[in-house]
Each structure stands twice: as structure tokens, then as C-alpha cells.
């Protein structure tokens, strides 16, 4: 390596982390708690890491835990490709590579202070949102009314059911859940997550609204928020793209001129006006 590069860090080089805890959440999702082997790990809700399994490859995963919770950080990984399949085989004590935290587009933890906060989650959209949900709940006095909407396709795909039940029990949180294709075990709301929006008790117009779900969900949620006159500046969307290098070079995650890995993955809706490919 040349002299000037010797002083710089290799932006592609993962550092080792250890699996502190791992368990299956359902057939496709696996929960992992990790700790870096070397040094601390500071992040803001909404940031992601590039997870390396040696020999298999690297995949971007958004952190699911809140920085307010000590003892490493948590990921929930859906089994969809080579890397995520390999992550599903990891157990307590196993090593993997981590780069990050990455992404300058984080949840508006400060901006939302004093305001009502509404989380709209579709399916595994709950996973990244959970980081900010717990951040808000751990700093409960800083925020206004808190509303969490969760839509899931099928009963068995529900995630963090204990946590969701605990949020539901709290007086200072409105927790609404719906299932699109329910079976007889489900006794509550039926349909897609947008159906829950009119049921929000707190004032929506002045709220900070955070949306995360599958690509198809955004259009419908945004239409509904439009009807409720939520200003675009107050809506934040967590966008998924093929983030390969995670550091703004490889080009795969580009939405028009924006690199999702650099300026995202959380975007303010009003900023997407110049990004026609976003939604």
C-alpha cells in the first residue's frame, strides 16, 4: 500500500463481531444479538451494517435495537439470499464480519422531540422501526403521543410479539395491529396497514410519521397520509435498495442521483421530490 493510503482505513474491510445470542423468530426470520470484538459500537436508529459471512458474502442489514439498550446490537435477518441463509446458521459464539454503522439518513431522533410520533410498519418493516420505537420509549418524556401501526400478512409472520404485547399494554402508547390473511387465532383488525391510519387517536397533521415496509406499501400509505394532510416534511420513509458496498461507490443502490447507502436508508418524503425512482 502506498504511503498516503497507509494512514487511511480500508473502507471495505469488515471487523469481527461475535454472536452473543441467536434464535429463530419464525420460519424465515432469525434474531441475532452481536457485540464487536474490538471497541464500542455507537449508532443512531435507522443506520445499517454490512454483515459478512466469510466465503459467502456481505449483506446490508438495518439495526433493530435501540442505542439506549446496552449489550451490543440486534439484527433480524430474513432468509432470502446466500448471505442471509448463512446468517441463519449462526449460533451463539460464532464470528462474523461487520462494517458500520453506515448511512447518514437516520431517524429524526432530535427533530421528533416534543412531537407526536407515528410508526407505520408493514411486515418486517417493524424490524428497523423497532430501533426508534424503543429509543422513543426509553426517552418517553421527550416525545408527544406515540402510535405504532403494524400490518402483517399472516399470523405466523408476526415479529417481536412479546414486545408488541408490552407496547399494547402501556397507557402512553397506542398500538394497533392488523393481519391481511388471518386465521382463527386472530381476533383483531383485518386488512392492510393503511386501514389503521383513520384509527389513530393523536393529532396526525403535526406528527412525525415514520414508514417502513415492502416497496408496494409506500404508495398506499402516502396516499392516506395525504388525505390526512400530513406535511411531506414530517414523513420519513425507510427505503430498501441493493446496497452492495455501503459506502457510496458501487452504484447498485442509486435512486436517481442519490446513494441510498450514503443519504439513506431513511429519507424525508419531501426530499424524494427529485427522486422519481424512489417510490
Amino acid at each position, binding site marked *: 500500500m502506498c504511503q498516503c493510503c497507509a494512514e487511511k482505513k480500508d473502507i471495505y474491510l469488515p471487523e469481527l463481531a461475535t454472536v452473543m445470542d441467536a434464535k429463530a423468530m419464525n420460519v424465515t426470520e432469525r434474531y441475532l444479538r452481536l457485540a464487536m470484538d474490538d471497541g464500542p459500537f455507537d449508532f443512531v436508529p435507522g443506520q445499517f451494517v454490512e454483515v459478512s459471512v466469510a*466465503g*459467502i458474502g456481505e449483506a446490508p442489514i438495518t439495526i433493530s435495537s435501540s442505542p439506549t439498550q446496552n449489550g451490543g446490537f440486534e439484527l433480524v435477518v430474513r432468509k432470502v*439470499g*446466500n448471505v442471509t*441463509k*448463512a446468517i441463519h*446458521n449462526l449460533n451463539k459464539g460464532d464470528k462474523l464480519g461487520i462494517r458500520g454503522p453506515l448511512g447518514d439518513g437516520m431517524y429524526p431522533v432530535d427533530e421528533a422531540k416534543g412531537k407526536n410520533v407515528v410508526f407505520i410498519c408493514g411486515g418486517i418493516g417493524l424490524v428497523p422501526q423497532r430501533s426508534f420505537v424503543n429509543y422513543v420509549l426509553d426517552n418517553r418524556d421527550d416525545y408527544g403521543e406515540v402510535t405504532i401501526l403494524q400490518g402483517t400478512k399472516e399470523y405466523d409472520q408476526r415479529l417481536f410479539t412479546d414486545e408488541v404485547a408490552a407496547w399494547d399494554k402501556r397507557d402512553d402508547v397506542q398500538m394497533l395491529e392488523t393481519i391481511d390473511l388471518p386465521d382463527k387465532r386472530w381476533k383483531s383488525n383485518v386488512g392492510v396497514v393503511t386501514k389503521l391510519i383513520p384509527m389513530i387517536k393523536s393529532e396526525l397533521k403535526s406528527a412525525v410519521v415514520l414508514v417502513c415496509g415492502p416497496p408496494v406499501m409506500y404508495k398506499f400509505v402516502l396516499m392516506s397520509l395525504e388525505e390526512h394532510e400530513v406535511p411531506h416534511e414530517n414523513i420519513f420513509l425507510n427505503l430498501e435498495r441493493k446496497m452492495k458496498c455501503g459506502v457510496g461507490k458501487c452504484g447498485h443502490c442509486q435512486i436517481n442521483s442519490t446513494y441510498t447507502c450514503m443519504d439513506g436508508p431513511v429519507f424525508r418524503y419531501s426530499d424524494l421530490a427529485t427522486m422519481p425512482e424512489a417510490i
Partner: protein
Amino acid sequence: MSKPKIAIFDFACCEGCQLQIVNLEEELLDLLGGADVVEWREAMSEKCDEYDIAIIEGSITRLEDEERLKLIRSRAKILIALGACATIGGINKLKNNFDDLDEVKKCVYGKDANKPHLATQPTKAVDEVVQVDAYVHGCPIDRKEFTYIMRCLLMGKEPEIPEYPVCVECKAKGNPCLWEYGQVCLGPIIRAGCGARCPSNGFRCFGCRGYIDNPNVDAAKDVIDKFGLNIDDLKTKMVLFGSRQEPTIHG
């Protein structure tokens, strides 16, 4: 953990792809270090009915071969199609262009045409008979790609086989385009992964790796017009490996 057992079977083919495996030489020892080869007619005399990975070379041209292939599939955890005959039917599919297969048989085998072991059907690629887990394309296969795929499978990883055409690798090699030298090269519509072996040596792409998932027929028409050719000029080049090629299913 015991080593996975590999069995190699040949159907209708020239066995040239198996020869490529033999030609791995030192790397063959590496492969044997990671797996036990329990049946391989071209290289050993043992036979075995228990295996984890079945490698199928050749296309399927007889009913009894279909039955044999189905039996192999039922025994194997992973089934690999090896070489163009297995992945796309290969040159053997040329005969599917003829309506009267009895005529074809007479032309090829003469007075022996009616012998029972020559009771052939229209040629099928392996995935037209059973499910295929991994494809090693090419005529013959590329040794480097084969070993990469084997390492992936032994690691429990799905190999990344290009979805893009040969032009990508050809340009990365710095080759000039053979169309400009009067060759009807199939590079723009054929799956990469061979490292553009033929064009790099001055031969047009013959199409042995099969079509990419989404070839652009409109573009092909435009290009043959541009070079003052007609559609038959292209078709005659495509027929060698592209005869009645069903879209391949890629897992």
C-alpha cells in the same frame, strides 16, 4: 462430518465435459479432498446407489433414460446439469428441428435404425425431465467455473451465474467486436460465464451457454439489418445450440 458423496452420470453426449473434470489434474485432487466420488464411469469402475450430489452430463433422448434420470434425482440431494447437452439440450437438439424422426434415424444409423437401443425421442435438456439445482453451462464446460460451482455447493451456497450476456466479459477482456469483422457473433444474447473464451480467440460466440433470461429480439433484428444480413443468416448460426431450446429454468 463425513464428506459428501458425488456421482457422475452420462447420458447422450460426447463425454467431453467429463473429460474437462479429468483435466482438472491437481485441482481434481482438491475436489476429491472435499468430496468422495463414488461413481464415475469415465474414470473408475465402482458403482454406487448412495450419493448426495449427482452430476448429470448429456441430454435425454430415450424413455429409459428419463426413468434412469428420475431415479437418480430421487436419490440425490443436489442435482447438477453439466455441460450444454444437459443444461440446454445442446447439439443433440438439432434433430428436434425435423418433423419425421424416423427419417432422421434412418439417415444417421442406416440399417441399424430400428435396433431397440436406438429407440430415441425428441431430445430434452435435463430440466425438462427433473428439477435441476445447479447449471454448469458450456460446450465444453469451463473448468474454472465448474470448480467455483462445486466449491459453492460444498459450502452450501448458491453459485452466482451471470444473467448478463457474453459481451460483458468480451469487453472486459478488451476485445474488438467480431461483428465488425464480419462474424455473426451470438455474444449479445448468450449467457456469460465462459470469460468470452471463443471471441477472445477470434471465433464468434456459438451460443453454447444458452440464451440469457431476457434476450432482446428487436435489437437482434436491428443489428442484422445494419450489417445487411437477413434473419436466416442469424438463424443458421443460432441453430447449433439454440434448436427448439425451451427457456431454461434457473433455480
